[in-house]
């Protein structure tokens, strides 16, 4: 592993002397280092991607270059005369072409979109007496040249095959670094090299950001370049651009090891030192940034550690000090697929040498093995993390920030609810609260977005975007489907625990003011009913812990045969809902409580439009003649009042009931039409 934050192409020129301040002697210890790191194969939370880019390995006739902007590897044979092959992680179809051999290629890069190729063959600039340090494409038609005397920003005019100078700035430059993700170029200036000048590029403009100084570990003895580009990296972490500085262990200071210092580089305002990542070891390091995690590889032990700057650290008033999140582990062992058609090659795949000295690391997540001809992206595996982070609260904080976290989180939830790793209720509560905090944030964003769209304010704000639902948003239906319903059905836990868990989840939802879906209540009720805990159910309903809804009222109604008070509880709930009047009447009629139904409907003023037949049917089924009489008379009176005649109209289909009435009470009992 040659470069900490390498930028330059891994050509044959590799193998420079280690930079000042770096511990030397890594090369000779490779064998031993591997044994140390390779022991703990379990719990490897870092892995190389399964489908690497394979290219012809570097050799005296084949030069290999890497372009960070397009993430492409260039294999240039004989200066391009016998072919250039370009391969990328994203574009799987290689681009091949030839070009005239006009001398050694120093740097080769496509513009964004692969339209224009730029090749540098000499160090000397044509116009001025300056050394060209390199160039970078900032868009498909804009290119920046960096020389040791300044920076030049050009527009390429492809039709005219010319360059137009947009802006330039004279400044003494030791080295430069480009972060394509954020379109920022960093220049190392001054004699010591530790004053960094960032430039930001956007649609034809070059803006100078405020410069800042990197604190060197010890006052340099002489006036020579003291900050190497190998110890600097730029990366976007949680949407913010950071300059990462690998500060090596110095014997003069009493630090316990090397550390990574993060400088936050905002688009506006000054750059500030914000985080310190403690490595607690010395030696050769390399940095990657994957899934917003800072990964630090250590060659001596052949292990890596990760840092999450969103996790809680030790705040000293200006900077936050972080320890690594997980114990150091090696990258997962990797087998190199053997070349050739599968039928021919029957031999076993070759294990890849990890942390090799020929590895070169690029930001954010690229690892290249020039000697073997592979380019990988580095990946974080979340499953092994689950067993490495014992503190479930911290584990959730960690997982919730990861891209592919959903299924892992749900499996952690399932795990903590079942033996043998059942968590305590307070741990479970903490986890639920963390999940619901994230869930609530999304609901709020969604709600305010909808509000803006509905009120028509969105036209005045074109930047408004629908909030993205990340995998960290774990809603009630996810929890129900993957965790809670499975857990209650398994019935391996004591029912007390089952109910406590369900109540804890409901408590957490309420705490974040999230409306609870009725299927969760159903789960609670089912569990209580299964264990005959009706009094508990009653108390929950009494305090409205199980919020009113029609489905819930219907569920209660169905419990009446095993718990009679459920009937009244259900009716009370329907009444409170005030949108379920029809249901109330139906429920009462089905229980032959015809008078109660009639009183209820009269109370809400709906008695003029109800069907007489429905009530008379119910009254007849009740087999109570006095009741039938009362109901019959009520409708006769209604007819009289509404139509001036007590008799029923044919449309009411009450002939059968009139006959029955006459049978029981006699014809003379029918109400006489009032005559004036």
């Amino acid at each position, binding site marked *: 592993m040659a470069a900490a934050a390498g930028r330059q192409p891994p050509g044959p020129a590799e193998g420079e002397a280690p930079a000042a301040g770096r511990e030397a002697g890594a090369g000779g210890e490779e064998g031993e280092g591997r044994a140390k790191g390779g022991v703990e194969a379990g719990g490897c939370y870092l892995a190389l991607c399964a489908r690497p880019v394979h290219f012809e390995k570097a050799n005296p006739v084949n030069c290999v270059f890497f372009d960070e902007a397009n993430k492409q590897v260039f294999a240039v044979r004989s200066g391009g005369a016998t072919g250039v092959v370009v391969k990328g992680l994203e574009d799987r179809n290689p681009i091949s072409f030839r070009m005239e051999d006009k001398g050694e290629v120093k740097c080769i890069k496509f513009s964004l979109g692969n339209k224009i190729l730029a090749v540098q063959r000499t160090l000397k600039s044509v116009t001025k007496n300056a050394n060209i340090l390199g160039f970078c494409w900032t868009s498909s038609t804009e290119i920046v040249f960096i020389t040791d005397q300044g920076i030049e920003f050009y527009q390429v005019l492809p039709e005219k095959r010319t360059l137009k100078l947009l802006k330039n700035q004279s400044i003494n430059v030791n080295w430069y670094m480009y972060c394509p993700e954020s379109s920022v170029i960093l220049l190392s200036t001054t004699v010591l090299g530790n004053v960094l000048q960032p430039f930001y590029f956007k649609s034809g403009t070059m803006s100078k950001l405020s410069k800042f100084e990197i604190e060197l570990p010890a006052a340099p003895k002489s006036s020579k370049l003291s900050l190497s580009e190998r110890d600097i990296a730029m990366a976007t972490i949680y949407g913010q651009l950071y300059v990462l500085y690998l500060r090596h262990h110095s014997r003069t200071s009493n630090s316990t090891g090397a550390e990574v210092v993060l400088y936050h580089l905002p688009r506006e305002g000054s750059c500030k030192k914000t985080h310190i990542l403690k490595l607690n070891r010395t030696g050769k390091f390399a940095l990657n940034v994957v899934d917003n995690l800072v990964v630090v590889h250590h060659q001596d032990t052949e292990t890596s550690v990760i840092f999450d700057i969103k996790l809680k650290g030790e705040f000293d008033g200006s900077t936050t000090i972080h320890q690594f999140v997980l114990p150091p582990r090696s990258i997962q062992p990797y087998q190199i697929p053997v070349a050739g058609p599968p039928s021919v090659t029957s031999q076993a795949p070759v294990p890849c040498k990890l942390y090799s000295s020929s590895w070169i690391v690029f930001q954010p997540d690229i690892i290249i093995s020039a000697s073997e001809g592979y380019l990988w992206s580095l990946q974080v595996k979340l499953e092994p993390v689950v067993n490495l982070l014992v503190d479930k609260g911290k584990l959730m904080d960690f997982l919730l920030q990861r891209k592919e976290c959903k299924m892992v989180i749900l499996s952690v939830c399932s795990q903590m609810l079942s033996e043998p790793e059942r968590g*305590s209720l307070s741990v479970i509560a903490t986890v639920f609260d963390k999940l619901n905090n994230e869930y609530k944030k999304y609901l709020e964003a969604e709600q305010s977005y909808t509000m803006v769209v509905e009120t028509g304010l969105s036209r005045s704000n074109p930047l408004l975007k629908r909030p993205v639902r990340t995998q960290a948003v774990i809603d009630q239906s996810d929890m129900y489907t993957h965790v809670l319903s499975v857990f209650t059905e398994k019935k391996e836990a004591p029912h*007390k625990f089952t109910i406590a868990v369900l*109540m*804890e989840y409901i408590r957490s939802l*309420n705490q974040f003011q999230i409306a609870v879906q009725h299927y969760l209540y159903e789960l609670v009720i089912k569990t209580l009913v299964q264990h005959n805990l009706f009094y508990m159910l009653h108390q929950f309903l009494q305090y409205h812990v199980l919020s009113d809804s029609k489905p819930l009222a219907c569920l209660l109604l169905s419990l009446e045969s095993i718990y009679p008070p459920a009937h009244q509880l259900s009716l009370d709930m329907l009444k409170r809902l005030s949108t379920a009047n029809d249901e109330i009447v139906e429920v009462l009629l089905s229980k032959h409580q015809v008078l109660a139904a009639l009183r209820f409907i009269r109370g809400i003023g709906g008695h003029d439009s109800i069907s007489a037949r429905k009530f008379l049917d119910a009254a007849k089924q009740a087999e109570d003649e006095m009741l039938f009489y009362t109901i019959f008379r009520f409708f006769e009176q209604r007819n009289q009042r509404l139509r001036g005649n007590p008799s029923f109209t044919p449309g009411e289909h009450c002939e059968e009931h009139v006959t029955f009435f006459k049978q029981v009470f006699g014809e003379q009992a029918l109400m006489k039409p009032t005559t004036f």
Partner: protein
Amino acid sequence: MAAAGAAGQEKQLAPTLLSFFIYNPKLGPKEGEEEKKILFYHPNEVEKNEKIRNVGLCEAIVQFTRTFSPTKPAKSLHTQKNRQFFHEPEENFWMVMVVRNPIIEKHKDGKPVYEYQEEELLDKVYSSVLQQCYSMYKLFNGTFLRAMEDGGVKVLKERLEKFFHRYLQTLHLQSCDLLDVFCGISFFPLDKMTYLKIQSFINRMEESLNIVKYTAFLYNDQLIWSGLEQDDMRILYKYLTTSLFPRHMEPELAGRDSPIRAEMPGNLQHYGRFLTGPLNLNDPDTKCRFPKIFVNTDDTYEELHLIVYKAMSAAVCFMIDASIPPTLEFCRKLDSIVGPQLTVLASDICEQYNINKRISGAEKEPQFKFIYFNHMNLAEKSTIHMRKTPSVSLASVHPDLMKILGDINSDFSRGETMDEMQTLQLLQPC
């Protein structure tokens, strides 16, 4: 003139307990062995033959009324001077309570004249009081039958004597009213979130103190949560609110035994303390004895230790299996876990309660006077009673109105059963 003078000298004498006895006719069926039937008799000073006579009379009345209503024999006997109430809580075990009617003492020609008020007492009220006597006994001693099984009549008699000797002194018959009929539970009004926090607290405590079988939570002497079944909670609630809590009220008001223990390790200051069990956790010789209670006697028949722990106005009852004697170590653990959390919770509840009160304007004098009782969850609420203490019932309405309410209540419940035989009105003075 004379009337005014007479009225001025009128004196009202409240109803009092004349006698209270428990018998089982099967225990002394032969003639001459009648005394064996008697398991408990108050007052004990009564001459043996009178005891036997009174028991015999009750037996005869019950037997007689049974011919009219085999399943529901008489529940009370009205006479001019007193009223007798009968209750058969377990097969063949009869409890009888004799209450003297209230008296108006007048002076006629310088001599006192007593006027018994035969119609004053409400059957339902005192029948309920009698039933509660049994329930309370059962809560702390288990069933009569179980005592017989444990050690025969001797043990049962001992238990009855020990329990009722003290309990009867706390009956306060003069202040019984309609609320005793319901024997309801007053629930503490609470918002959903605070309620869920309490749920969460209880579940966590039951988890940490893993021997806890049931938990009940009260605030301001009102129930918030019961893990016990309704009927057991009903009587436990009565015990807590009429006996245990009032006993601890006075030292609290007097500011004695200041509960903040600054010497607690880790600076865990809290207001938690045991209302039952150890008085001083720092004394290694302190006794960790808790009252035993019996619940689910119809079913699983569980014997439990009752631990009542209180911080400010919040009280928690932890009930643990009687086979596990709580050690001092356990009590200290409970104190260190429950104390701080309960203190925080109690102040949360208080704060939330005050907010809700301000919103609903409940601080004002209630507009309507009412007694509410929900037979399904036994929830009870009254704006008539200012505050019911064991000795005085402070009803804010005229006693006549209370009586009318009582009559209405018994009319309603009689309407359900239509059983006149439950009350036997004797026209002859007895």
